[in-house]
């Protein structure tokens, strides 16, 4: 039986992998189908690089593996990578002019692990420059089909932002230009765009997925994770992505790879879900609140108990995060000096002038702002008052979570205070974006696993995500809770019109 090509992009990863294994569709056909869709919908600005030759070569290799009976669990499943992961065969730019056209000599560990599982790379996805942003409005790279940088558009309303920094990733899944993708989350960059685009995304415990080959933003916060339509699909990718990488990432945890899908169907009877009062205060849009409340009611129907808890330093997580992340970024981005790779200014007087001109031309406004903040808080006389103080409050925030987890098994609340806003709405006020990160930052600072699960629609008919936060290494429990919700609701199956 041959599958009609119109049905291919409606399949989830699990179904598509099965169809490929049963040879009802070939890896080459699947890759061609999604490449054609990506091209047909390039107005959304999701992809920044495709290379059909490289993709089809990978697909042919997977068809051979399937025929030979040596196929991995994701054999022939087409995916795409956030352009923060370095890849051979596609440029790796981190959304920056600094790395325009950069060809990496190696693959990120996450890319290698997914390829080993059989996944085929469709291309690279747009993101905020060096993953710094909450709207994907900070990309300096022209999307495929464009001559100049262009906004990434939310497929639910193309006048709105997709969220960020993994905006291209979220759009690719929501518009069905890829069945699943990778993203990275430093302060919410998987969860928030997943929420804004109505898809499912999970950030694992810090240290679960290797950071090797993930262009560094804030090393003590950066984590890779999958984004897909369902929790079941996320579990398949996450199982392939996680695992120790002791020789290449010094912060990678010594924990074996795990099948996160094995507990998907566990009962939620008696599950205690903590509801932090601080996530439901003033400033939460009524439409977001209504969708979140409705999802929590579903959980009660599934046997869970809601427990009021407190995360008293939620508001403090904004300054703490926006000290720590820029501090680490200013250090990580010092490597861009125009010597070993990337952009170099054309005219300069001497070495220091070359550094300055190269960096001033190569970095965009938001990146410069964060380098400035980071440099300042790490400078002599300010280090203790800012950076060290932030790292101490970070411990208090992590301790608050441990106190909460004595009363509950999971924590639930909104991902963001509002739905996706209009393109350009926050104008040139970076603080407006920073403040909107309030609900994702606490779990980031504590290094806890967190996810966004489609929970309905709010203001303007835009998607709303329910945030679930687990304790350390609780990814299986999170995905289980998300999967059970998705068995009872169909928000994750809804798709934007016009596609």
């Amino acid at each position, binding site marked *: 039986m041959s599958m009609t090509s119109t049905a291919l992009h409606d399949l989830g990863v699990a179904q598509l992998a099965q169809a490929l294994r049963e040879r009802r569709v070939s890896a080459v056909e699947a890759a061609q189908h999604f490449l054609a869709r990506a091209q047909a919908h390039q107005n959304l600005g999701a992809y920044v690089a495709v290379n059909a030759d490289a993709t089809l070569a990978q697909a042919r290799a997977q068809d051979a593996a399937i025929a030979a009976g040596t196929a991995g669990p994701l054999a022939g499943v087409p995916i795409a990578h956030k352009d923060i992961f370095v890849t051979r065969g596609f440029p790796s730019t981190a959304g920056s002019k600094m790395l325009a056209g*950069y*060809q990496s*000599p190696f693959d990120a560990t996450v890319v290698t692990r997914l390829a080993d599982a059989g996944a085929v790379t469709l291309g690279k996805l747009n993101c905020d420059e060096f993953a710094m942003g909450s709207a994907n409005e900070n990309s300096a790279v022209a999307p495929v089909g464009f001559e100049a940088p262009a906004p990434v558009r939310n497929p639910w309303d193309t006048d709105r932002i997709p969220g960020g920094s993994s905006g291209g990733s979220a759009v690719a899944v929501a518009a069905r230009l890829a069945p699943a993708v990778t993203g990275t989350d430093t302060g919410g960059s998987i969860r928030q765009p997943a929420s804004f685009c109505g898809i499912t995304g999970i950030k694992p*415990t*810090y*240290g679960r997925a290797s950071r090797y080959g993930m262009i560094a933003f804030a090393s003590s916060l950066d984590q890779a994770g999958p984004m897909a339509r369902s929790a079941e699909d996320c579990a398949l990718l996450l199982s392939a992505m996680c695992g120790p990488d*002791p*020789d290449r990432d*010094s*912060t990678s*945890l010594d924990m074996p790879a795990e099948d996160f899908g094995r507990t998907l169907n566990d009962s939620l009877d008696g599950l205690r879900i903590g509801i932090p009062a601080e996530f439901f205060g003033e400033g939460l849009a009524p439409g977001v609140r209504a969708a979140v409340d409705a999802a929590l009611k579903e959980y009660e129907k599934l046997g869970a108990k809601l427990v009021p808890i407190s995360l008293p330093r939620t508001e*403090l997580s*904004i*300054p703490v995060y926006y*000290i720590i992340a820029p501090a680490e970024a*200013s250090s990580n981005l010092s490597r861009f000096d125009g*010597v*070993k*790779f990337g*952009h*170099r200014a054309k005219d300069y007087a*001497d*070495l*220091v002038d*070359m550094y*300055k*001109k190269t*960096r*001033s031309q190569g*970095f965009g*406004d938001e990146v*410069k*702002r964060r*380098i*400035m*903040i*980071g*440099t*300042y808080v790490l*400078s002599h006389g300010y280090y203790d008052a*800012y950076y*060290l*103080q932030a*790292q*101490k*409050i*970070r*411990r*208090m925030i*992590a*301790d608050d979570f*441990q106190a909460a987890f004595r009363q509950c098994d999971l924590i639930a609340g909104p991902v963001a205070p509002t739905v996706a806003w209009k393109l350009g709405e926050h104008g*040139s006020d*970076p*603080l407006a974006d*920073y403040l909107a990160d309030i609900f994702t930052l606490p779990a980031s600072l*504590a*290094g*806890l696993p967190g996810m966004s699960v489609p929970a309905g629609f709010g203001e303007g008919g835009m998607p709303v995500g329910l945030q679930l936060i687990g304790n*350390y290494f609780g990814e299986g429990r999170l995905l289980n809770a998300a999967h059970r919700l998705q068995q009872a609701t169909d928000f994750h199956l809804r798709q934007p019109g016009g596609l």
Partner: protein
Amino acid sequence: MALTSQDIARIANLARLELSENESERMLAQLNGFFGIVEKMRAVDTAGLTPLAHPVAAIQDVPLRLRDDVASEPDQREANQKSAPAVERGLFLVPKVIE
């Protein structure tokens, strides 16, 4: 405590950034706006707390790992230098540093 335009110039120099006059002015206003929200953080009593670097260290020891100091990678100089702005005979070229 507000930053001044002299502070911006000093920090930009440390960060090896060259900011135009317009950029400096904008940066000054934006950074002062930002440090407005940071003030709340400075008032928190953190006496006796150890800073948290690896977040999982909040619940368990995370030993710092060191790799054995042995060469384990093949020579990939050519591939690694492919994206360098200026290379000659396998060396990275920079402007003259010593007269």
